[in-house]
């Protein structure tokens, strides 16, 4: 189809679809009139039976924990997929970045940026850990905390230390950390099976509501998810970074006139 024909066909289709969707909304309960019952039953059970005050975390890691396991592996598969798609092909080599436009070397990162980047790393990492371990009490958890953790690690890159970063976190170490995080969730789930109950059943003491050491397995699951997300995201971003920075040299001269 040419773009013009396609646009006309699309507008007809999407117009019809929009009318259908709009009609359906008329039959729904009004905005603000959520009538349950699923959410309300879960809210009650969350605090009384699991000592979890953040009900969203309770749903994510306990009631519907199996969804989250699937979600974690979607992330897992995506990180592997990016590594697969951006893997260096034989016609690419590894070299250091050269500014292709003028042939000049990249200016060294200024000390101020370096200090700022390195200085921000510890508090960011700490904040990430805080968000992970308080997931069952207040908003946050393994996913959000994991992303923050990864950001903290990447601040090192901002400080211009990609080589250091890469030395510290080689791919194999990151992959192993990710694998351990992913397997950790399953392992915790299997504890229930080993104890003679079902997958993802809680087998640990529930503790005092509101304490960090409460809510049974949920904080542990959060930790393993946090590890997986942090390691996976760093792996993902370093894969992109490597494409940007390291793999440029060999193909660039060919493109230059």
């Amino acid at each position, binding site marked *: 189809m040419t773009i013009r024909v396609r646009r006309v066909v699309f507008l007809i289709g999407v117009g019809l679809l929009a009318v259908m969707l709009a009609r359906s909304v008329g039959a729904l309960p009004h*905005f*603000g009139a959520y009538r349950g019952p699923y959410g309300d039953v879960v809210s009650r059970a969350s605090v009384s039976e699991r000592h979890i005050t*953040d009900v*969203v*975390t309770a749903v994510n890691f306990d009631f519907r924990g199996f969804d989250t396991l699937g979600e974690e592996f979607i992330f897992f598969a995506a990180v592997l997929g990016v590594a697969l798609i951006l893997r260096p092909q034989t016609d690419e080599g590894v070299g250091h970045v050269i500014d*292709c*436009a003028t042939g000049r070397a990249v200016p060294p990162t200024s000390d101020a940026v370096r200090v700022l980047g390195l200085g921000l790393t510890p508090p960011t990492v700490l904040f990430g850990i805080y*968000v992970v371990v308080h997931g069952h009490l207040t*908003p*946050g*958890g393994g*996913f*959000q905390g994991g*992303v*923050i953790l*990864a*950001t903290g690690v990447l601040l090192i890159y901002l400080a211009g230390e990609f080589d250091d970063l890469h030395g510290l976190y080689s791919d194999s170490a990151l992959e192993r950390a990710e694998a351990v995080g992913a397997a950790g969730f399953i392992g915790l789930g299997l504890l229930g099976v080993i104890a003679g109950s079902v997958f993802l059943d809680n087998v640990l003491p529930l503790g005092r509501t509101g304490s960090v050491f409460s809510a049974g397995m949920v904080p542990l699951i959060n930790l393993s998810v946090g590890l997986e997300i942090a390691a996976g*995201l760093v792996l*993902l*971003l370093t894969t*992109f*970074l490597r*494409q*940007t920075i390291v793999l*440029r040299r060999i*193909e*660039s001269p060919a*493109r*230059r006139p």
Partner: protein
Amino acid sequence: MTFLQATILVFVGAGGTCVVATRDPLRQAMVASLFGILLGILFFVLQAPDVALSEIVVGAVALPLMILLSLAKIRGGDR
């Protein structure tokens, strides 16, 4: 619905339009990041702090970062 919620909803609708209407990828990455923040605020006023937190770390930070890295690669190759 409160006035605040209605206002932010309108902003989100307009923000989405801007994201699609911005055809230059670099500027679009910036607009998309703003759109992520708007969504985060919307989720806050819809009483969903967990979702808001993740939308902000993902939609306003991680995703635009990946877009920028891709752009850096692509622009680098262009020269």
